[in-house]
């Protein structure tokens, strides 16, 4: 039962209700037919794997995106928010993991950002900020620059800003991921205060114990659908994990094991890599002819270590760890050097850095071939470009009107195949696929898995980074589970279950 008896009467009519909410991205539903309701002084916990739709749902509530179907009822009225500012004016605020403060301004200025009067003095806004900050028991100098604050303090300023807007609904998108244990305690104390003020909270976290402790109700999303919505007191960690991953197990069971799944030569050895806050002592090896899959949650340092290996990022110069390729130590300054040595990285974010959007399929594929030619090679031949592009279009089964179609007009799966073709034609010894089937439909995902397996059978050392557990079990010869910047467990996919992987990856 709700511990705050004064609000009991309000339980019948929730502050905010999403009914039948659905959001279509391209041709796949990020969330569909989701019903959630937020109550005064209560905290709703949202759990789910990466890509399950937690962020989409919270962005829809906060007005950052518009729902394709379904509606949002706020304080008894149907609302359509065109932009985050509309939601904010109504009193719905969101606190992102990556804070959205202006770091060159003071705390007081940030709190008042967007609500300043045309003429205002720094003194009056500082005084108001002091009052606000004291009322939430948060002691920080309002005239301090935000850039000097710690992660937790920044979050407090965000919360203060939300309260300055008189927020009645406050959404926290993975607020605890970057906090130390003490900072977390402070945040949870604040949760209690906010509940007492009658604010409805949404709390998104991968740390299931925190959800169980802090929330009255817990909802679990899987593949965009709401699969569980129960009072927290009646749930256990095991049950949540089961609902998070609980797919039809037949998908992974269909796997037939090749007889030669044993490892070949050790190709890459990564030892104790450090980079910034993301990678902390990562060590692993890759073997020729084997698909190694790195499972784990977003923010576990997987993409970062892949980019270090492929020369996009640089590890710490001193005590940054060692990387060996075929027994020789390597340290690349540019991806071009890594590609010359046969290490190719396929990005997780096609749109940002996967393909060239002004270029056709043919040009996008051929430029990968051009990239690895000797520098004396000057002229390019049109017929060769056509031949190579036709070969790869058939090889990875890209479905498009023709070679001259623009890649940006293709479906996600076909875009990914173009990116794959360009990477594989660079004849890699080691290839890293970062989230290879993100935003890809089921049919194309099968083709992509087939291409990955064929590569391994041809003796390439393959590293797949995947947050999708069925995919992990489908393609892996060996599973590495990462958590907080290091590999914490190695599993044989024959013994691995989605639950075991999820247990190792959450904290």
């Amino acid at each position: 039962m709700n511990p705050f008896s004064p609000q009991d009467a309000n339980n019948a009519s929730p502050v905010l209700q999403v009914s039948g909410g659905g959001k279509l991205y391209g041709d796949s539903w990020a969330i569909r037919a989701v019903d959630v309701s937020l109550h005064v002084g209560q905290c709703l916990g949202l759990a789910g794997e990466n890509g399950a739709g937690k962020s989409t749902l919270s962005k829809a509530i906060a007005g950052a995106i518009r729902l394709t179907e379904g509606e949002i009822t706020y304080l008894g009225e149907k609302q359509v928010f065109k932009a985050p500012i509309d939601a904010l004016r109504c009193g719905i605020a969101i606190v992102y993991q990556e804070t959205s403060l202006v770091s060159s301004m003071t705390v007081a200025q940030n709190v008042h950002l967007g609500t300043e009067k045309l003429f205002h003095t720094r003194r009056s806004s500082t005084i108001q900020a002091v009052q606000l900050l004291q009322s939430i028991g948060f002691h920080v100098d309002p005239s301090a620059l935000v850039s000097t604050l710690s992660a937790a303090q920044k979050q407090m300023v965000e919360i203060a800003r939300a309260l300055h807007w008189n927020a009645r609904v406050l959404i926290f998108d993975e607020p605890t991921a970057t906090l130390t244990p003490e900072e977390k305690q402070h945040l949870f104390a604040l949760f209690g205060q906010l509940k007492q003020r009658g604010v409805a909270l949404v709390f998104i976290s991968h740390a299931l114990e925190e959800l169980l402790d802090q929330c009255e109700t817990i909802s679990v999303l899987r593949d965009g659908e709401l699969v569980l919505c129960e009072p927290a007191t009646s749930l256990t960690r095991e049950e949540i994990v089961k609902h998070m991953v609980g797919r039809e197990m037949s998908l992974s069971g269909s796997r037939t094991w090749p007889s030669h799944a044993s490892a070949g030569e050790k190709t890459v050895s990564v030892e104790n890599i450090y980079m910034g806050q993301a990678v902390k002592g990562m060590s692993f090896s890759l073997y020729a002819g084997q698909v190694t899959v790195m499972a784990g949650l977003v923010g576990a340092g997987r993409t970062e270590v892949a980019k270090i290996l492929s020369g996009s990022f640089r590890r710490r110069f001193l005590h940054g760890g060692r990387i060996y390729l075929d027994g020789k130590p390597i340290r690349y300054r540019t991806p071009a050097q890594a590609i010359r040595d046969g290490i190719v990285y396929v990005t997780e974010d096609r749109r940002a850095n996967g393909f060239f959007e002004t270029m056709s399929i043919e040009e996008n594929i051929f430029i990968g071939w051009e990239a690895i030619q000797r520098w004396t090679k000057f002229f390019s031949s049109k017929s060769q470009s056509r031949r190579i592009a036709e070969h790869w279009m058939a090889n990875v089964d890209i479905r498009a009107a023709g070679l001259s179609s623009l890649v940006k007009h293709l479906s996600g799966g076909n875009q990914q195949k173009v990116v794959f073709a360009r990477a594989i034609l660079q004849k890699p010894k080691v290839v890293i696929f970062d989230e290879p089937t993100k935003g890809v439909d089921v049919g194309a995902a099968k083709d992509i898995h087939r291409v990955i397996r064929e590569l391994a059978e041809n003796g390439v050392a393959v590293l797949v980074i995947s947050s999708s557990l069925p995919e992990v079990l489908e393609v892996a010869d060996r599973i590495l589970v990462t958590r907080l910047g290091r590999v914490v467990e190695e599993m044989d996919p024959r013994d691995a279950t989605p639950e075991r992987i999820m247990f190792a990856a959450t904290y």
Partner: protein
Amino acid sequence: MTPQPRKMISLAGLLEERWAVLALVTALIIVAFAMFLPGFFTVENWVALIRSVSVLGILGVGAAIVIIAGGIDICVVAIMAATAGWFLQMTQDGASVALAFSLCFVLALAIGLVNGVLVSFFEMPALLVTIGTAMFLSGLTKLVLVKQSVVYVPEELVDFRFIGQGYMGGIPVPVIAFVCFAVIGHIFLRKTRYGHFIYARGDNPETARIIGLPTRPLVVGVFVISALVALCAGIITASASGGMNINISHGTLIFDVFLVAVIGGVSLSGGQGGILGVAIGALLIGVLLNGMTLMNLNNIYQDLFKATALLVAIVWDSLLHPVDPETAREGDL
């Protein structure tokens, strides 16, 4: 495999191509001027017209290459003034043409390298870097390189005048030079590996780097090309007008260069456009200015016309390639 369907050539498809629209507009204006302006459609007038835009066109080719690669080079006019002025000063002071030209070549090369290295290796914005080098260079020119702000071609250099004032087969040499630059530039961008790299770098620098293109050396190369093109344009200008006024580096010529490139369909966001568009853009500007001169319109109107043409081109471009607010706002799922 089934044969690929050939690229359909339809009117609607052509209207998507910037250069085709531009050619159409230019043709219409030429027809209109030919009908209503006596003296416009004569051989002498056309020779004068094309000659008047040939230097602009050459600079446009250099600017197009830089902009397609995702950069911008403000300092070309300063390089032009500095190298040509210094060249004439040295020959006046008795240096041989070969020596003077080599030193100017080294100067242009050095400025190109400095621009390129600052932009690519030190990751500074190209706009600010080239503004800085342009100001530095014009200061250096007045202080050290030349004695007066206008340097004339020395009497002895009779052959030098051929570059700007001579004819080959009845065609002015600057026009031939413009055609050569345009053809070489076109082949470089469209038919060579490095040309493809330049388009890739301009389209998406991050992708270009990840797939293993030598993006940094590429950017240095592009700025060096731009500087050397400016050197050639400077020599032609000096020869054609019999001297070099180094104050042109404070003038509006640089805006005309970008005008030609942008009207020609070279997008300032990089990776789009080509030399064909630049050539037609230069022609269009030449026709407009020539027609207005024949109509005895004041210079002030010329600026207004150029500005209008530029704004129309930019609006047209954003209509053809609209930014989708939904995709721009919704990064991830």
